[in-house]
Protein backbone atom coordinates (compact mmCIF):
# COMPACT_ATOMS: atom_id res chain seq x y z
CA UNK A 1 0.00 0.00 0.00
CA UNK A 2 2.70 2.42 1.10
CA UNK A 3 6.41 1.83 0.83
CA UNK A 4 9.30 4.06 1.96
CA UNK A 5 12.78 3.11 0.82
CA UNK A 6 15.81 4.98 2.15
CA UNK A 7 13.83 8.17 2.37
CA UNK A 8 15.64 11.27 3.54
CA UNK A 9 14.37 14.80 3.95
CA UNK A 10 15.91 18.12 4.78
CA UNK A 11 14.37 21.55 4.86
CA UNK A 12 16.37 23.89 2.67
CA UNK A 13 20.07 23.66 3.44
CA UNK A 14 19.47 22.46 7.01
CA UNK A 15 20.35 19.06 8.44
CA UNK A 16 18.36 15.98 7.47
CA UNK A 17 15.30 15.64 9.68
CA UNK A 18 14.59 12.15 8.32
CA UNK A 19 17.38 9.75 7.44
CA UNK A 20 17.23 6.45 5.56
CA UNK A 21 13.64 5.78 6.55
CA UNK A 22 12.51 2.42 5.25
CA UNK A 23 9.18 0.84 6.14
CA UNK A 24 5.84 -0.11 4.66
CA UNK A 25 2.19 0.11 5.56
CA UNK A 26 0.51 -3.15 4.54
CA UNK A 27 -3.20 -3.32 3.79
CA UNK A 28 -5.52 -3.78 6.81
CA UNK A 29 -2.74 -2.93 9.24
CA UNK A 30 -2.66 -0.93 12.46
CA UNK A 31 0.42 0.88 13.71
CA UNK A 32 1.52 3.57 16.07
CA UNK A 33 4.12 6.10 15.06
CA UNK A 34 5.89 7.38 18.12
CA UNK A 35 8.95 9.23 19.25
CA UNK A 36 9.93 12.31 21.23
CA UNK A 37 8.69 15.75 20.28
CA UNK A 38 10.55 17.11 17.29
CA UNK A 39 11.70 13.66 16.21
CA UNK A 40 9.98 13.96 12.84
CA UNK A 41 6.55 12.35 13.36
CA UNK A 42 4.59 15.15 11.73
CA UNK A 43 7.13 15.40 8.91
CA UNK A 44 6.74 11.68 8.24
CA UNK A 45 2.95 12.08 8.25
CA UNK A 46 3.25 14.92 5.75
CA UNK A 47 5.33 12.70 3.51
CA UNK A 48 2.69 9.99 3.82
CA UNK A 49 0.01 12.51 2.97
CA UNK A 50 1.93 13.77 -0.06
CA UNK A 51 2.18 17.30 1.23
CA UNK A 52 5.98 17.03 1.27
CA UNK A 53 8.39 15.54 -1.24
CA UNK A 54 11.48 13.67 0.04
CA UNK A 55 14.95 14.98 -0.63
CA UNK A 56 16.06 11.47 -1.51
CA UNK A 57 14.76 7.92 -1.52
CA UNK A 58 11.63 6.37 -2.98
CA UNK A 59 8.07 6.63 -1.75
CA UNK A 60 5.48 4.40 -3.37
CA UNK A 61 1.82 4.97 -2.52
CA UNK A 62 -0.88 2.71 -3.94
CA UNK A 63 1.69 1.50 -6.44
CA UNK A 64 2.55 4.98 -7.70
CA UNK A 65 5.93 6.65 -7.36
CA UNK A 66 5.20 9.78 -5.32
CA UNK A 67 7.98 11.70 -7.08
CA UNK A 68 6.26 11.30 -10.45
CA UNK A 69 2.81 12.46 -9.44
CA UNK A 70 1.41 15.64 -10.91
CA UNK A 71 -0.95 17.90 -8.96
CA UNK A 72 -4.13 16.18 -10.12
CA UNK A 73 -2.80 12.68 -9.47
CA UNK A 74 -1.65 13.79 -6.01
CA UNK A 75 -5.12 15.15 -5.25
CA UNK A 76 -6.70 11.90 -6.48
CA UNK A 77 -4.43 9.79 -4.25
CA UNK A 78 -5.03 12.09 -1.33
CA UNK A 79 -8.74 11.35 -1.63
CA UNK A 80 -7.88 7.74 -0.79
CA UNK A 81 -6.13 8.82 2.42
CA UNK A 82 -7.91 10.24 5.45
CA UNK A 83 -6.02 12.45 7.84
CA UNK A 84 -6.88 13.77 11.26
CA UNK A 85 -4.79 16.77 12.21
CA UNK A 86 -3.65 17.50 15.71
CA UNK A 87 -5.16 20.97 15.46
CA UNK A 88 -8.29 19.61 13.68
CA UNK A 89 -8.04 22.08 10.75
CA UNK A 90 -11.80 22.71 10.71
CA UNK A 91 -12.97 25.76 8.79
CA UNK A 92 -14.57 28.12 11.28
CA UNK A 93 -17.00 29.68 8.82
CA UNK A 94 -18.52 26.32 7.87
CA UNK A 95 -20.86 24.31 10.05
CA UNK A 96 -19.89 20.90 11.43
CA UNK A 97 -21.98 19.31 8.69
CA UNK A 98 -20.26 21.35 5.97
CA UNK A 99 -16.82 20.62 7.39
CA UNK A 100 -17.46 16.89 7.40
CA UNK A 101 -18.95 17.03 3.89
CA UNK A 102 -16.00 19.01 2.52
CA UNK A 103 -14.05 16.06 1.02
CA UNK A 104 -17.15 15.07 -0.97
CA UNK A 105 -17.98 18.64 -1.92
CA UNK A 106 -14.52 19.24 -3.37
CA UNK A 107 -15.02 16.18 -5.55
CA UNK A 108 -17.81 18.11 -7.24
CA UNK A 109 -20.63 15.97 -5.87
CA UNK A 110 -24.09 17.43 -5.51
CA UNK A 111 -25.07 18.06 -1.92
CA UNK A 112 -28.23 15.97 -2.30
CA UNK A 113 -26.11 12.94 -3.16
CA UNK A 114 -24.24 12.90 0.14
CA UNK A 115 -26.50 14.74 2.58
CA UNK A 116 -27.92 11.60 4.16
CA UNK A 117 -24.50 9.97 4.32
CA UNK A 118 -22.94 12.90 6.16
CA UNK A 119 -25.83 13.25 8.55
CA UNK A 120 -25.66 9.55 9.26
CA UNK A 121 -21.95 9.71 10.03
CA UNK A 122 -22.42 12.76 12.23
CA UNK A 123 -25.07 10.92 14.24
CA UNK A 124 -22.76 7.96 14.55
CA UNK A 125 -19.91 10.01 15.94
CA UNK A 126 -22.32 11.66 18.36
CA UNK A 127 -22.54 15.03 16.64
CA UNK A 128 -26.06 14.64 15.27
CA UNK A 129 -27.35 17.49 17.37
CA UNK A 130 -24.35 19.67 16.59
CA UNK A 131 -24.26 19.44 12.82
CA UNK A 132 -25.34 23.03 12.21
CA UNK A 133 -23.03 24.47 14.83
CA UNK A 134 -19.89 26.33 13.86
CA UNK A 135 -16.58 24.84 15.08
CA UNK A 136 -15.72 27.67 17.51
CA UNK A 137 -18.74 26.57 19.57
CA UNK A 138 -17.66 22.91 19.70
CA UNK A 139 -15.68 21.44 22.57
CA UNK A 140 -12.24 19.94 21.96
CA UNK A 141 -13.64 16.40 21.90
CA UNK A 142 -16.39 17.40 19.50
CA UNK A 143 -13.91 19.06 17.20
CA UNK A 144 -11.78 15.93 17.31
CA UNK A 145 -14.73 13.76 16.34
CA UNK A 146 -15.74 16.18 13.60
CA UNK A 147 -12.19 15.98 12.25
CA UNK A 148 -12.31 12.19 12.39
CA UNK A 149 -15.68 12.16 10.62
CA UNK A 150 -14.26 14.41 7.90
CA UNK A 151 -11.36 11.99 7.46
CA UNK A 152 -13.75 9.05 7.21
CA UNK A 153 -16.46 10.45 4.96
CA UNK A 154 -14.46 9.74 1.82
CA UNK A 155 -14.05 6.08 2.85
CA UNK A 156 -10.25 6.20 2.89
CA UNK A 157 -8.06 3.14 2.52
CA UNK A 158 -5.51 4.59 4.92
CA UNK A 159 -6.29 6.72 7.94
CA UNK A 160 -3.52 8.90 9.38
CA UNK A 161 -4.05 10.57 12.73
CA UNK A 162 -1.65 13.10 14.22
CA UNK A 163 -1.86 13.08 18.03
CA UNK A 164 -5.60 12.39 17.93
CA UNK A 165 -5.79 12.13 21.69
CA UNK A 166 -3.60 15.09 22.45
CA UNK A 167 -6.50 17.41 23.23
CA UNK A 168 -8.92 15.08 24.99
CA UNK A 169 -9.23 13.56 28.43
CA UNK A 170 -8.04 9.96 29.03
CA UNK A 171 -11.57 8.58 28.95
CA UNK A 172 -12.35 10.06 25.55
CA UNK A 173 -8.88 9.08 24.35
CA UNK A 174 -9.71 5.43 25.06
CA UNK A 175 -12.95 5.74 23.15
CA UNK A 176 -11.27 7.37 20.20
CA UNK A 177 -8.72 4.56 20.17
CA UNK A 178 -11.59 2.09 20.10
CA UNK A 179 -13.02 3.96 17.12
CA UNK A 180 -9.73 3.64 15.27
CA UNK A 181 -9.53 -0.05 16.13
CA UNK A 182 -12.98 -0.65 14.77
CA UNK A 183 -12.08 1.17 11.58
CA UNK A 184 -8.98 -0.98 11.30
CA UNK A 185 -11.05 -4.11 11.70
CA UNK A 186 -13.29 -2.95 8.90
CA UNK A 187 -10.28 -3.04 6.58
CA UNK A 188 -8.84 0.44 6.82
CA UNK A 189 -5.12 0.71 7.46
CA UNK A 190 -4.58 3.01 10.42
CA UNK A 191 -1.48 4.90 11.50
CA UNK A 192 -1.66 6.91 14.71
CA UNK A 193 1.14 9.32 15.52
CA UNK A 194 1.35 9.76 19.26
CA UNK A 195 3.76 10.06 22.12
CA UNK A 196 1.13 8.85 24.59
CA UNK A 197 2.66 5.63 25.96
CA UNK A 198 -0.50 4.89 27.91
CA UNK A 199 -2.54 4.93 24.75
CA UNK A 200 -0.15 2.58 22.95
CA UNK A 201 -0.10 0.20 25.89
CA UNK A 202 -3.82 -0.36 25.48
CA UNK A 203 -3.39 -2.18 22.19
CA UNK A 204 -0.65 -4.49 21.05
CA UNK A 205 0.11 -3.10 17.63
CA UNK A 206 3.07 -2.54 15.41
CA UNK A 207 5.15 0.41 16.50
CA UNK A 208 7.19 2.72 14.33
CA UNK A 209 9.59 4.56 16.59
CA UNK A 210 11.31 7.61 15.21
CA UNK A 211 14.22 9.23 16.96
CA UNK A 212 16.60 11.85 15.66
CA UNK A 213 15.30 11.27 12.16
CA UNK A 214 15.81 7.51 12.10
CA UNK A 215 12.94 5.04 12.12
CA UNK A 216 12.88 1.68 13.86
CA UNK A 217 10.00 -0.74 13.32
CA UNK A 218 8.84 -3.04 16.13
CA UNK A 219 6.44 -5.61 14.68
Amino acid at each position, binding site marked *: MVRFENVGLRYGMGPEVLRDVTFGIPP*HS*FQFLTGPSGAGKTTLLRLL*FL*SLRPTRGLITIFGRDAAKLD*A*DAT*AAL*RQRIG*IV*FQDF*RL*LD*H*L*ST*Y*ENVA*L*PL*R*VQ*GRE*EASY*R*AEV*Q*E*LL*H*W*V*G*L*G*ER*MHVLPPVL*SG*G*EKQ*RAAIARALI*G*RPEILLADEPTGNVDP*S*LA*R*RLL*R*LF*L*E*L*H*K*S*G*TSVLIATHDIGLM*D*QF*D*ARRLVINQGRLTVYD
Partner: protein
Amino acid sequence: MTEKRSRISSMLVSVTRRLPTRARGGESAGTPPAAPVRASGEKGAPATSGAGARAGSKAAGSTVAGPAVAGSAPAGAAAVRPVAAPLRSAPQRPIVPGTTVTARALVAVIAIMTFLAGITIGAVSSVSNVAAEWTSDIARETTIQIRPGDGLDVEAALAKAVSVARATQGVANARALDESETAALLEPWLGAGLDLANLPVPRLVVVNLAPGAGAPVLAALRSALAEQVPSAMLDDHRQWAERLSSTARTAMAIGLAVLGLVATATVLCVAVATRAAVDAARSVVEVLHLVGARDTFIVSEFQHHFLTVGLKGAAIGGGAAVALFLLGSTIPSWFAVDRSIDTLVGALTIDLRGYGGIFGVSVLVALVTTLTSRTTVYRTLRGIG
Protein backbone atom coordinates in the same frame (compact mmCIF):
# COMPACT_ATOMS: atom_id res chain seq x y z
CA MET B 1 -17.29 -0.62 -0.38
CA THR B 2 -20.95 -0.46 0.65
CA GLU B 3 -20.45 -3.43 2.89
CA LYS B 4 -17.39 -1.77 4.40
CA ARG B 5 -19.33 1.42 4.93
CA SER B 6 -22.06 -0.50 6.66
CA ARG B 7 -19.56 -2.16 8.93
CA ILE B 8 -17.94 1.12 9.81
CA SER B 9 -21.32 2.55 10.57
CA SER B 10 -22.25 -0.32 12.82
CA MET B 11 -19.00 -0.11 14.68
CA LEU B 12 -19.20 3.59 15.06
CA VAL B 13 -22.58 3.11 16.64
CA SER B 14 -21.09 0.81 19.22
CA VAL B 15 -18.32 3.28 19.98
CA THR B 16 -20.29 6.46 20.05
CA ARG B 17 -22.89 5.00 22.36
CA ARG B 18 -20.15 5.23 24.92
CA LEU B 19 -19.12 8.79 24.18
CA PRO B 20 -19.66 11.28 26.96
CA THR B 21 -23.09 12.76 27.37
CA ARG B 22 -21.97 16.27 26.36
CA ALA B 23 -20.40 14.93 23.21
CA ARG B 24 -23.67 13.36 22.15
CA GLY B 25 -25.53 16.60 22.34
CA GLY B 26 -26.87 16.11 25.82
CA GLU B 27 -28.48 12.73 25.35
CA SER B 28 -28.93 10.34 28.28
CA ALA B 29 -27.50 12.32 31.06
CA GLY B 30 -26.97 9.28 33.19
CA THR B 31 -24.99 7.20 30.74
CA PRO B 32 -22.20 5.42 32.60
CA PRO B 33 -18.64 5.53 31.33
CA ALA B 34 -17.58 2.69 29.10
CA ALA B 35 -15.27 -0.11 30.08
CA PRO B 36 -11.69 0.01 28.81
CA VAL B 37 -11.12 -1.28 25.30
CA ARG B 38 -10.28 -4.95 25.17
CA ALA B 39 -10.67 -6.01 21.63
CA SER B 40 -9.02 -9.04 20.14
CA GLY B 41 -5.31 -8.56 19.95
CA GLU B 42 -5.25 -6.29 22.96
CA LYS B 43 -3.12 -7.01 25.92
CA GLY B 44 -4.97 -8.52 28.81
CA ALA B 45 -8.38 -9.99 28.86
CA PRO B 46 -10.22 -11.10 25.75
CA ALA B 47 -13.00 -9.09 24.24
CA THR B 48 -15.91 -8.50 26.46
CA SER B 49 -19.27 -7.02 26.17
CA GLY B 50 -17.79 -3.66 26.99
CA ALA B 51 -16.25 -3.49 23.57
CA GLY B 52 -19.14 -5.13 21.91
CA ALA B 53 -19.35 -8.87 21.40
CA ARG B 54 -18.32 -9.40 17.87
CA ALA B 55 -19.35 -12.59 16.19
CA GLY B 56 -16.60 -14.00 14.10
CA SER B 57 -14.09 -11.32 14.90
CA LYS B 58 -10.54 -12.19 14.00
CA ALA B 59 -7.13 -11.05 14.99
CA ALA B 60 -5.97 -7.53 14.36
CA GLY B 61 -5.61 -6.92 10.69
CA SER B 62 -8.57 -9.08 9.74
CA THR B 63 -12.03 -8.02 8.76
CA VAL B 64 -15.05 -8.36 10.94
CA ALA B 65 -17.54 -10.93 9.82
CA GLY B 66 -20.52 -9.67 11.68
CA PRO B 67 -21.85 -6.34 12.78
CA ALA B 68 -20.57 -4.86 16.00
CA VAL B 69 -23.28 -5.03 18.56
CA ALA B 70 -23.19 -2.84 21.54
CA GLY B 71 -23.05 -4.29 24.87
CA SER B 72 -26.49 -4.92 25.07
CA ALA B 73 -29.19 -3.03 25.04
CA PRO B 74 -32.03 -1.83 23.12
CA ALA B 75 -31.87 1.07 25.50
CA GLY B 76 -28.42 1.80 24.17
CA ALA B 77 -29.75 1.67 20.67
CA ALA B 78 -32.46 4.11 21.60
CA ALA B 79 -29.80 6.54 22.73
CA VAL B 80 -28.59 6.83 19.17
CA ARG B 81 -30.73 9.04 17.00
CA PRO B 82 -32.43 7.15 14.21
CA VAL B 83 -31.26 8.29 10.83
CA ALA B 84 -33.73 6.64 8.51
CA ALA B 85 -35.13 9.99 7.46
CA PRO B 86 -32.24 12.39 6.90
CA LEU B 87 -32.75 15.96 7.95
CA ARG B 88 -32.76 18.66 5.37
CA SER B 89 -29.66 20.71 5.76
CA ALA B 90 -29.43 24.47 5.57
CA PRO B 91 -28.12 25.93 2.31
CA GLN B 92 -24.39 25.41 2.15
CA ARG B 93 -22.17 28.36 2.81
CA PRO B 94 -19.55 29.32 0.24
CA ILE B 95 -16.26 27.53 0.80
CA VAL B 96 -14.41 30.85 0.65
CA PRO B 97 -15.64 33.05 3.52
CA GLY B 98 -17.31 36.15 2.15
CA THR B 99 -18.20 38.22 5.18
CA THR B 100 -14.84 38.66 6.83
CA VAL B 101 -13.41 42.04 7.73
CA THR B 102 -10.77 41.57 5.03
CA ALA B 103 -13.39 40.88 2.36
CA ARG B 104 -15.38 43.98 3.33
CA ALA B 105 -12.22 46.08 3.36
CA LEU B 106 -11.33 44.76 -0.09
CA VAL B 107 -14.75 45.78 -1.44
CA ALA B 108 -14.19 49.27 0.01
CA VAL B 109 -10.70 49.55 -1.49
CA ILE B 110 -11.93 48.44 -4.90
CA ALA B 111 -14.91 50.82 -4.77
CA ILE B 112 -12.76 53.82 -3.77
CA MET B 113 -10.07 53.16 -6.36
CA THR B 114 -12.62 52.54 -9.11
CA PHE B 115 -14.37 55.78 -8.18
CA LEU B 116 -11.11 57.75 -8.34
CA ALA B 117 -10.16 56.14 -11.66
CA GLY B 118 -13.67 56.79 -12.99
CA ILE B 119 -13.54 60.44 -11.96
CA THR B 120 -10.15 60.80 -13.64
CA ILE B 121 -11.37 59.17 -16.85
CA GLY B 122 -14.47 61.36 -16.84
CA ALA B 123 -12.42 64.50 -16.22
CA VAL B 124 -9.96 63.67 -19.00
CA SER B 125 -12.83 62.87 -21.34
CA SER B 126 -14.57 66.11 -20.44
CA VAL B 127 -11.42 68.20 -20.94
CA SER B 128 -10.82 66.45 -24.26
CA ASN B 129 -14.36 67.20 -25.42
CA VAL B 130 -14.27 70.85 -24.35
CA ALA B 131 -10.86 71.45 -25.95
CA ALA B 132 -11.97 69.80 -29.18
CA GLU B 133 -15.14 71.87 -29.17
CA TRP B 134 -13.27 75.13 -28.61
CA THR B 135 -10.73 74.36 -31.33
CA SER B 136 -13.43 73.31 -33.72
CA ASP B 137 -15.56 76.40 -33.02
CA ILE B 138 -12.71 78.81 -33.50
CA ALA B 139 -11.57 77.04 -36.65
CA ARG B 140 -15.06 77.08 -38.15
CA GLU B 141 -15.52 80.82 -37.74
CA THR B 142 -13.38 83.34 -39.65
CA THR B 143 -13.63 87.08 -40.08
CA ILE B 144 -13.29 89.38 -43.08
CA GLN B 145 -12.13 92.82 -42.10
CA ILE B 146 -12.88 95.89 -44.27
CA ARG B 147 -10.65 98.83 -43.36
CA PRO B 148 -11.97 102.28 -44.23
CA GLY B 149 -9.84 104.82 -46.07
CA ASP B 150 -8.98 106.32 -49.43
CA GLY B 151 -12.63 107.09 -50.22
CA LEU B 152 -13.66 103.48 -49.94
CA ASP B 153 -17.38 102.79 -49.85
CA VAL B 154 -17.35 100.58 -46.77
CA GLU B 155 -20.96 99.43 -47.09
CA ALA B 156 -20.45 98.42 -50.72
CA ALA B 157 -17.23 96.63 -49.86
CA LEU B 158 -19.03 94.81 -47.03
CA ALA B 159 -21.81 93.70 -49.38
CA LYS B 160 -19.28 92.55 -51.97
CA ALA B 161 -17.27 90.63 -49.36
CA VAL B 162 -20.43 88.92 -48.14
CA SER B 163 -21.38 87.97 -51.66
CA VAL B 164 -17.85 86.65 -52.44
CA ALA B 165 -17.83 84.63 -49.23
CA ARG B 166 -21.24 83.13 -49.85
CA ALA B 167 -20.18 82.16 -53.38
CA THR B 168 -17.14 80.30 -52.10
CA GLN B 169 -17.50 76.53 -51.91
CA GLY B 170 -17.36 75.35 -48.31
CA VAL B 171 -18.74 78.48 -46.68
CA ALA B 172 -21.93 77.82 -44.79
CA ASN B 173 -22.88 81.38 -43.98
CA ALA B 174 -21.54 84.91 -44.19
CA ARG B 175 -22.99 87.98 -42.50
CA ALA B 176 -21.80 91.55 -42.09
CA LEU B 177 -21.98 93.03 -38.59
CA ASP B 178 -24.07 96.17 -38.72
CA GLU B 179 -23.11 99.39 -37.04
CA SER B 180 -24.90 98.67 -33.79
CA GLU B 181 -23.20 95.27 -33.45
CA THR B 182 -19.83 96.85 -34.22
CA ALA B 183 -20.49 99.55 -31.64
CA ALA B 184 -21.40 96.87 -29.11
CA LEU B 185 -18.07 95.14 -29.75
CA LEU B 186 -16.19 98.39 -29.10
CA GLU B 187 -18.29 99.50 -26.13
CA PRO B 188 -15.97 98.03 -23.48
CA TRP B 189 -13.10 100.16 -24.77
CA LEU B 190 -14.73 103.28 -26.21
CA GLY B 191 -17.95 103.53 -24.22
CA ALA B 192 -21.60 103.69 -25.24
CA GLY B 193 -23.22 106.05 -27.77
CA LEU B 194 -20.42 105.70 -30.26
CA ASP B 195 -20.87 107.27 -33.69
CA LEU B 196 -18.96 105.06 -36.09
CA ALA B 197 -19.27 107.60 -38.92
CA ASN B 198 -16.70 109.78 -37.17
CA LEU B 199 -14.21 107.01 -36.55
CA PRO B 200 -12.13 104.93 -39.00
CA VAL B 201 -13.29 101.71 -37.46
CA PRO B 202 -12.87 98.51 -39.48
CA ARG B 203 -16.09 96.65 -40.27
CA LEU B 204 -16.42 92.93 -40.02
CA VAL B 205 -18.00 90.09 -41.95
CA VAL B 206 -18.45 86.89 -39.93
CA VAL B 207 -17.96 83.80 -42.09
CA ASN B 208 -18.99 80.34 -40.87
CA LEU B 209 -17.39 77.43 -42.65
CA ALA B 210 -19.30 74.28 -43.40
CA PRO B 211 -18.46 71.27 -41.20
CA GLY B 212 -15.34 69.60 -42.52
CA ALA B 213 -14.19 72.65 -44.41
CA GLY B 214 -10.55 73.45 -43.79
CA ALA B 215 -7.52 75.20 -45.15
CA PRO B 216 -8.38 74.83 -48.91
CA VAL B 217 -11.64 76.73 -48.41
CA LEU B 218 -9.84 79.53 -46.59
CA ALA B 219 -7.22 79.69 -49.37
CA ALA B 220 -9.92 79.91 -52.04
CA LEU B 221 -11.76 82.62 -50.09
CA ARG B 222 -8.57 84.60 -49.56
CA SER B 223 -7.78 84.40 -53.24
CA ALA B 224 -11.29 85.47 -54.29
CA LEU B 225 -11.24 88.43 -51.86
CA ALA B 226 -7.84 89.55 -53.12
CA GLU B 227 -9.21 89.69 -56.64
CA GLN B 228 -12.64 91.19 -55.98
CA VAL B 229 -12.37 93.15 -52.70
CA PRO B 230 -8.78 94.38 -52.36
CA SER B 231 -9.58 96.32 -49.18
CA ALA B 232 -10.70 93.13 -47.42
CA MET B 233 -8.44 91.17 -45.15
CA LEU B 234 -9.24 87.58 -44.10
CA ASP B 235 -8.48 86.71 -40.49
CA ASP B 236 -8.66 82.91 -40.09
CA HIS B 237 -7.87 83.04 -36.32
CA ARG B 238 -4.97 80.66 -37.00
CA GLN B 239 -2.90 82.10 -34.19
CA TRP B 240 -5.69 81.62 -31.67
CA ALA B 241 -6.56 78.20 -33.01
CA GLU B 242 -2.93 77.10 -32.71
CA ARG B 243 -2.67 78.42 -29.17
CA LEU B 244 -5.89 76.74 -28.16
CA SER B 245 -4.90 73.53 -29.85
CA SER B 246 -1.57 73.61 -28.03
CA THR B 247 -3.32 74.29 -24.72
CA ALA B 248 -5.75 71.45 -25.37
CA ARG B 249 -2.91 69.06 -26.22
CA THR B 250 -1.10 70.03 -23.01
CA ALA B 251 -4.26 69.58 -20.96
CA MET B 252 -4.86 66.18 -22.58
CA ALA B 253 -1.26 65.10 -21.97
CA ILE B 254 -1.51 66.10 -18.30
CA GLY B 255 -4.88 64.37 -18.05
CA LEU B 256 -3.57 61.17 -19.62
CA ALA B 257 -0.51 61.22 -17.35
CA VAL B 258 -2.75 61.59 -14.30
CA LEU B 259 -5.01 58.86 -15.66
CA GLY B 260 -1.98 56.61 -16.13
CA LEU B 261 -0.85 57.24 -12.56
CA VAL B 262 -4.34 56.71 -11.14
CA ALA B 263 -4.81 53.54 -13.22
CA THR B 264 -1.45 52.19 -12.03
CA ALA B 265 -2.25 53.07 -8.44
CA THR B 266 -5.66 51.42 -8.81
CA VAL B 267 -4.22 48.21 -10.21
CA LEU B 268 -1.48 48.08 -7.54
CA CYS B 269 -3.86 48.85 -4.66
CA VAL B 270 -6.42 46.31 -5.84
CA ALA B 271 -3.74 43.67 -6.46
CA VAL B 272 -2.11 44.16 -3.06
CA ALA B 273 -5.45 44.22 -1.24
CA THR B 274 -6.59 41.10 -3.09
CA ARG B 275 -3.35 39.32 -2.29
CA ALA B 276 -3.76 40.23 1.37
CA ALA B 277 -7.33 38.92 1.32
CA VAL B 278 -6.24 35.62 -0.24
CA ASP B 279 -3.38 35.32 2.25
CA ALA B 280 -5.88 35.86 5.06
CA ALA B 281 -7.78 32.85 3.73
CA ARG B 282 -4.65 30.71 3.46
CA SER B 283 -6.05 28.23 5.99
CA VAL B 284 -8.97 27.60 3.63
CA VAL B 285 -6.58 26.89 0.74
CA GLU B 286 -4.59 24.52 2.95
CA VAL B 287 -7.61 22.60 4.20
CA LEU B 288 -9.07 22.26 0.70
CA HIS B 289 -5.68 21.05 -0.53
CA LEU B 290 -5.42 18.54 2.27
CA VAL B 291 -8.91 17.07 1.86
CA GLY B 292 -8.05 16.18 -1.72
CA ALA B 293 -9.36 19.14 -3.74
CA ARG B 294 -7.75 19.56 -7.12
CA ASP B 295 -5.85 22.78 -7.64
CA THR B 296 -8.28 23.80 -10.38
CA PHE B 297 -11.21 23.41 -7.97
CA ILE B 298 -9.54 25.55 -5.30
CA VAL B 299 -8.53 28.22 -7.81
CA SER B 300 -12.02 28.20 -9.30
CA GLU B 301 -13.64 28.72 -5.89
CA PHE B 302 -11.37 31.64 -5.09
CA GLN B 303 -11.67 33.14 -8.56
CA HIS B 304 -15.44 33.02 -8.38
CA HIS B 305 -15.44 34.61 -4.95
CA PHE B 306 -13.02 37.39 -5.87
CA LEU B 307 -14.74 38.05 -9.19
CA THR B 308 -17.92 38.67 -7.19
CA VAL B 309 -16.03 40.90 -4.76
CA GLY B 310 -14.37 42.76 -7.64
CA LEU B 311 -17.61 43.30 -9.52
CA LYS B 312 -19.35 44.46 -6.34
CA GLY B 313 -16.65 47.00 -5.49
CA ALA B 314 -16.29 48.13 -9.12
CA ALA B 315 -20.05 48.54 -9.47
CA ILE B 316 -20.18 50.70 -6.34
CA GLY B 317 -17.18 52.86 -7.35
CA GLY B 318 -18.02 53.04 -11.06
CA GLY B 319 -21.69 53.66 -10.31
CA ALA B 320 -20.80 56.51 -7.97
CA ALA B 321 -18.57 58.11 -10.65
CA VAL B 322 -21.32 57.79 -13.29
CA ALA B 323 -23.87 59.22 -10.86
CA LEU B 324 -21.60 62.19 -10.17
CA PHE B 325 -21.23 63.01 -13.86
CA LEU B 326 -24.95 62.50 -14.51
CA LEU B 327 -25.78 64.86 -11.67
CA GLY B 328 -23.16 67.34 -12.90
CA SER B 329 -24.68 67.42 -16.35
CA THR B 330 -28.30 67.70 -15.22
CA ILE B 331 -28.19 69.90 -12.11
CA PRO B 332 -27.98 73.19 -14.06
CA SER B 333 -31.17 72.36 -15.96
CA TRP B 334 -32.98 71.48 -12.70
CA PHE B 335 -32.34 74.88 -11.25
CA ALA B 336 -32.55 76.83 -14.52
CA VAL B 337 -29.39 78.66 -13.59
CA ASP B 338 -27.74 81.21 -15.81
CA ARG B 339 -25.12 80.37 -18.39
CA SER B 340 -22.17 81.30 -16.20
CA ILE B 341 -22.93 78.49 -13.76
CA ASP B 342 -23.83 76.23 -16.66
CA THR B 343 -20.38 76.92 -18.04
CA LEU B 344 -18.82 76.30 -14.64
CA VAL B 345 -20.31 72.81 -14.24
CA GLY B 346 -20.22 72.12 -17.92
CA ALA B 347 -16.81 70.50 -17.34
CA LEU B 348 -18.58 67.63 -15.55
CA THR B 349 -20.46 66.69 -18.69
CA ILE B 350 -19.05 63.63 -20.43
CA ASP B 351 -20.14 61.78 -23.53
CA LEU B 352 -20.69 58.09 -24.16
CA ARG B 353 -16.96 57.53 -24.55
CA GLY B 354 -16.47 58.85 -21.02
CA TYR B 355 -19.16 56.57 -19.61
CA GLY B 356 -17.63 53.72 -21.63
CA GLY B 357 -14.26 54.51 -20.06
CA ILE B 358 -15.71 54.32 -16.56
CA PHE B 359 -17.39 51.02 -17.42
CA GLY B 360 -14.11 49.78 -18.87
CA VAL B 361 -12.08 50.66 -15.78
CA SER B 362 -14.69 48.93 -13.61
CA VAL B 363 -14.37 45.75 -15.66
CA LEU B 364 -10.58 46.08 -15.57
CA VAL B 365 -10.58 46.35 -11.76
CA ALA B 366 -12.82 43.27 -11.46
CA LEU B 367 -10.48 41.36 -13.78
CA VAL B 368 -7.39 42.47 -11.86
CA THR B 369 -9.03 41.26 -8.65
CA THR B 370 -9.87 37.91 -10.20
CA LEU B 371 -6.49 37.34 -11.83
CA THR B 372 -4.61 38.40 -8.70
CA SER B 373 -6.61 35.95 -6.61
CA ARG B 374 -5.86 33.23 -9.17
CA THR B 375 -2.10 33.81 -9.17
CA THR B 376 -2.00 34.19 -5.39
CA VAL B 377 -3.86 30.92 -4.82
CA TYR B 378 -1.55 29.10 -7.23
CA ARG B 379 1.43 30.61 -5.42
CA THR B 380 -0.03 29.51 -2.07
CA LEU B 381 -0.59 26.00 -3.42
CA ARG B 382 2.99 25.84 -4.66
CA GLY B 383 4.09 26.91 -1.17
CA ILE B 384 2.00 24.22 0.49
CA GLY B 385 3.08 21.49 -1.92
